């Protein structure tokens, strides 16, 4: 690997770390964790057309849309004049695996190196891919991140439901803001209160449950797909907002599912290919712990009763087995058909599968599995939507509208 600028110890105090806007709710919480540790961070909000243009200029145009957007968002920010370029670092999440997404960070480094060789790019990963950065994921930070994901998922789920049905516009957003602030403060104060899963979760659920909702029956639409396009409004042209404006309720599976999918992939592969080692055993262990917490969370949600609980992950795995082997671990792999099946099972038969144009794993796991899922569930109403710098909103919306017309039939 070629040389690149490193994020060193002394940069912690001087440098501001820019973070791309992938999951607006989750990432805000995550930033507060790092801020408590003394890092300076900023979530990027730039979303004009120049983000796409910078992406087109700085990465190969056939590289997938998420890479193009993330890199474009960084480059656009760096060129905005807002920042002192000698005091800036960039952070990007990194997953390993056979999908080209594991190359995002390298493509970003390539683009940055050409223009700003001094700017370090930090990898945020949990698989020990890069060790030479001063941004250390200590076990405590790891734990905090894990809880941030859970709280982010809860907020996202409650918020999406409440803002769809709320009688007084804006109430859901208020509650969301309040909780984002509150959890952020818990982390900033370095309090251990974040560990009180039951207390915090029930409070969140109860708070949202207080919002008066209309009893109107709306079409519920599940959103699955490639992780970035699925969650990032920048990438999916504000899909959740669009669905709400069409009188639907968007249902977005939790980020925790994706994390558990990644964790299970390692020990599952070890089983499939008979090459278990310490690493895979550790993953197994970590998975068990996470799964235990997930079950706890689900039971809290069930007990509270106002919101649809998350999919039990072991149940997802069983559902996946009906359609595809859990050995399919590139990109979102078997998780996509499993989530589609789980959504259909819980009565959410209308599904949008979001994917970057030309996404390799999605040929197999999304478009490739639709037929099998529809065969088992004749009412399943699945539409695959491609996202790409050239794809127009009108085209995407028209296809979604067709799906909705089917749903209303």
């Amino acid at each position: 690997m070629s040389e690149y600028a490193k994020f060193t110890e002394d940069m912690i105090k001087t440098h501001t770390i820019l973070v791309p806007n992938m999951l607006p709710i989750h990432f805000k919480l995550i930033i507060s964790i790092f801020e408590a540790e003394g890092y300076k961070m900023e979530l990027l909000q730039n979303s004009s057309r120049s983000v796409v243009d910078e992406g087109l200029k700085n990465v190969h145009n056939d590289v997938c849309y998420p890479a193009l957007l993330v890199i474009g968002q960084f480059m656009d920010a760096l060129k905005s004049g807002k920042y002192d370029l000698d005091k800036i670092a960039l952070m990007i999440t990194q997953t390993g695996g056979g999908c080209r997404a594991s190359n995002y960070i390298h493509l970003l480094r390539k683009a940055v190196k050409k223009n700003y060789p001094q700017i370090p790019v930090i990898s945020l990963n949990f698989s020990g891919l890069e060790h030479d950065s001063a941004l250390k994921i200590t076990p405590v930070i790891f734990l905090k991140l894990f809880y941030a994901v859970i709280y982010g998922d809860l907020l996202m789920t409650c918020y999406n439901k409440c803002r769809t049905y709320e009688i007084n516009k804006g109430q859901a957003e208020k509650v969301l803001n309040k909780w984002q602030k509150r959890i952020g403060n818990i982390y900033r104060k370095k309090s251990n209160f974040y560990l009180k899963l039951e207390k915090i979760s029930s409070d969140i659920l109860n708070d949202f449950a207080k919002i008066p909702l209309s009893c109107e029956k709306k079409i519920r639409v599940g959103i699955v797909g490639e992780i970035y396009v699925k969650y990032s409004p920048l990438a999916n042209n504000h899909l959740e907002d669009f669905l709400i404006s069409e009188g639907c309720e968007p249902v977005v599976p939790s980020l925790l599912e994706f994390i558990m999918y990644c964790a299970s992939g390692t020990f599952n592969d070890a089983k499939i290919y008979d090459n278990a080692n310490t690493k895979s055993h550790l993953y197994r262990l970590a998975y068990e712990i996470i799964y235990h917490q997930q079950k706890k969370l689900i039971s809290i949600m069930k007990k509270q009763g106002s919101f649809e609980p998350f999919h039990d992950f072991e149940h997802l795995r069983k559902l996946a087995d009906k359609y595809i082997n859990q050995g399919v671990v590139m990109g979102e792999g078997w998780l996509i058909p499993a989530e589609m099946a789980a959504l259909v099972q819980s009565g959410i038969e209308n599904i949008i599968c979001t994917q970057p144009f030309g996404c390799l794993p999605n040929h197999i796991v999304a478009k490739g599995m639709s037929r099998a899922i529809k065969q088992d569930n004749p009412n399943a109403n699945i539409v695959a939507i491609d996202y790409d710098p050239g794809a127009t909103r009108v085209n995407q919306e028209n296809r979604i509208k067709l799906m909705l017309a089917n749903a209303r039939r």
Partner: protein
Amino acid sequence: MSKKLSLGIDVGSTTVKTVISDSDGNIIYAKYQRHLSKVKETVTDQLKIIQADYPDDIFTVCITGSAGLGLANSAELPFVQEVHAAFLAVKKKYPDVDSVIELGGEDAKIIFLTGGVEQRMNGSCAGGTGAFIDQMATLLGITTDELDNLSLRSQKIYPIASRCGVFAKSDIQPLLNQGARREDIAASIFQAVVDQTVSGLAQGRSIEGKILFLGGPLFFLKGLKNAFVVTLGLDEENAIFPEEAPVFVAYGCSLYASTSDDYFRIDEIINKVSKARASDGIITGKPLFASQAEYDEFIDRHKKYDLAYADIHKYKGNAYLGIDAGSTTTKLVLITDDGKILYHHYSSNMGQPLDKIAEQIKRIYNEMNPDIIIKGSAVTGYGEDLIKAGLSIDCGIVETVAHFKAASYFCPDVDFIIDIGGQDIKCFRIKNRNIDSIMLNEACSSGCGSFIQTFAMALGYDISEFSQLGLFAQHPVDLGSRCTVFMNSSVKQAQKDGATVEDISAGLSMSIIKNAIYKVIRANSPEELGQNIVVQGGTFLNDAVLRSFEKEIGRNVIRPAISGLMGAFGCALYAKEKVTAEKSALISKEELETFSYTSRSAQCKGCTAHCQLNIINFGKGRRFISGNRCEKGGGISSKNTIPNLYEYKYNSIVNIVKTHQPKRPVGTVGFPLALGFYEQLPFWHMLFTELGFRVVVSDESSRGMYYLGQHTIPSDTVCYPAKITHGHIENLLNKNVDFIFYPCMSYNIDEGQSDNHFNCPVVAYYPELLLANNPRLNERNFIHPYIDLNVKKNVIKVLKNSLKGYNLRCRIPDALEKAYKAMENYNSDIARQAENIIRQAREEKRNIIVLAGRPYHIDKEINHGIHKLITSLGMAVITEDSVSALARTPKLDVLNQWTYHSRLYRAANYVTKQPDMQMIQLVSFGCGIDAVTGDEVRNILESHGKLYTQLKIDEINNLGAARIRLRSLVAAMEQK
């Protein structure tokens, strides 16, 4: 008394349809009209006509159609999705229909009614249909009606890529240039539309029973109707083409409206529509010129690069003829000894380049002073071979060389040339007065000159008038920079949002430039292009395009006034340099008087590739044969002895099954000759024959093989090597094997030297997709276990499990050892063969090309015979895997984690150390991973002074672009 009626308004991409139905659902009024992008005005006009006829009635109303969405929203009128509207209409009028196929201006839709209602639309890359046919007609220089009439007199069908208009164009163009019958091309265009519908939309569901056909094209075009009926095997009773087809969707829309209780008087509706405000959702850029003064400066500056002219009637002395037989245009230049222009010509070739050029030469003979001697002539462009043969031109040169010659004439220090023509973008960097690297637009990004032209026509303008409009547009629209199809919908959206024609014109000019800079050249900054840039090609005559280019790169450039003629001018200069004879061999005035030719098509019997040949007979025994990929069909019988590892590898793989088979087999196993099997077949064959199975491999790939499995392809944007696998599976199933064995493999063989050794997602998991989408496959006849060949105990365990029923447990370990050995032997045989080829080539002083791709690129249906094209240029061919073991991985900027791809880096590194070698990378269209590898391989090669050439391949069987690149590469190598 006023009646209660329902009004449906269908606003499509090109037309507006209105229908009024009464309370019983009968159509009592219908109208169909092109809107030429003036959506709101056309709708209002139609409503006014209705107002005159139904002044007192009240209506429930609804809008539908791709361009209707925005209108409905801002006019606050109800909207229904158009496929759903069609569905309602079908339910009412033709309740016994099984499926509906509707082709619109830019959409294709299908509705399945029996066996689970399903409504589908083409995906975002599926290309237009009505617009596609319009484009093709424009390409042929005729109307769609004429196209239809031609198609009815066809004799044969050529394979034309059906995925999108751009692909199809690049299939059709060479056919035209080679003189194929226009009748046949017309019919082939319709067949391509049918194939697209069947493969792109049906996706595994078969179209059967009673079919209803809707939409304008299917109503007006008889040839298209026939093609559908024949392809789907329908009889008269089962193919319904309703009278009301053009307004059918509007009718469904009126039925949807009838369920509403909101009644309006027609003047209320007119009021709402005319008040509808365009949304401000469009993104706009800055005007091209801020002031008239800026424009005047621009015009003056470019006037400097004009040529001197001489009078053809008066001039005496030598003259040189240059011809550029481009893909859509014909360019001719006749120059004097000192480079003055005597005669020039630029026109569309109307699909008949030979006739056009002959006509022009005739004119030159008629007009020129008898004291002019045409000393030399040269031709370049797509039609080079044909013109050279037909009109006895002295020499043919590759386009890049011609353009470089011409550009140097205007700017001796030129270091970057960009040429945007009708169909292609060519860019090249010049270093040390040599062509250093060449960039051509790939099949998908051909948003070039003819694209603006098609748009201008669609909007009802003439091209020069249209581009002029853009010059002073106040808010040019940002239309993105992808392919034509996407651009179509961007334009649609902009129109919907109220952009003016001026803004769209300027926006199109800008997107052509963005396309060129960011997609073709892939430049990060203007500095990368160069100091002295010459722009040329017909498209740059358009001032708006030229200005967009200067603005985008922030630098002034040189555009010669003969911008469109540069290829021809370069040819003339070349002819002047190379002149040896007293007089050009050019066809004489007398010969021209009687010049005629006939063309016919035939199939080459030279080898199993069965190339489609076009034979053009000029009389007196002179003929020109095209369409052949090697020399065999070209009428030359000499045997090609230039060594070619692609041939060798391919033959060893397909012949493996013949090597040995068990005498008393325990069963029959089938392997598809596709994807990973192109490399691992020696392994699996040995393993299974040792276990006592008879091994059957699917037949060799062909276009027919692809069609065989086309109906089971769920994702039409996956790479061609994956798509063709579907055909191989069908082929195997037809061979009655006991089971197909096709393992899933996240990991490939670890060859060391890389960060990991994955397969790409498609190669790794394609069996899962095949099983889920081919109804003939099940868990019993399709065994697809997960295996890691690096972990022996895993392989043993998995095989024991998979072959449970055969009781072979104890034989597996031994068989496996032999299989690993067989794989090793195969690999070393290939490496040895490469050594031999390198030695032989060096003895013969030939250059060697490492044609680098993936194992499955040896499939001749996938590589389209590119390796033969290379040997026909006198160079030897070896593969990436045969030399990758000879070098280490160089320093990379990316994660090197795929086995196949890591070979590319090592092979590239190897090439940098071999003075007589160059590397050409084969990239399958849609291969996302090569978006990562391509730039890296380029870096490795270029940082060592090697040339980087990438050839993108897909189902299109057109080697035109590949030929230009390869010949330019040869020219560049010769100069180095």
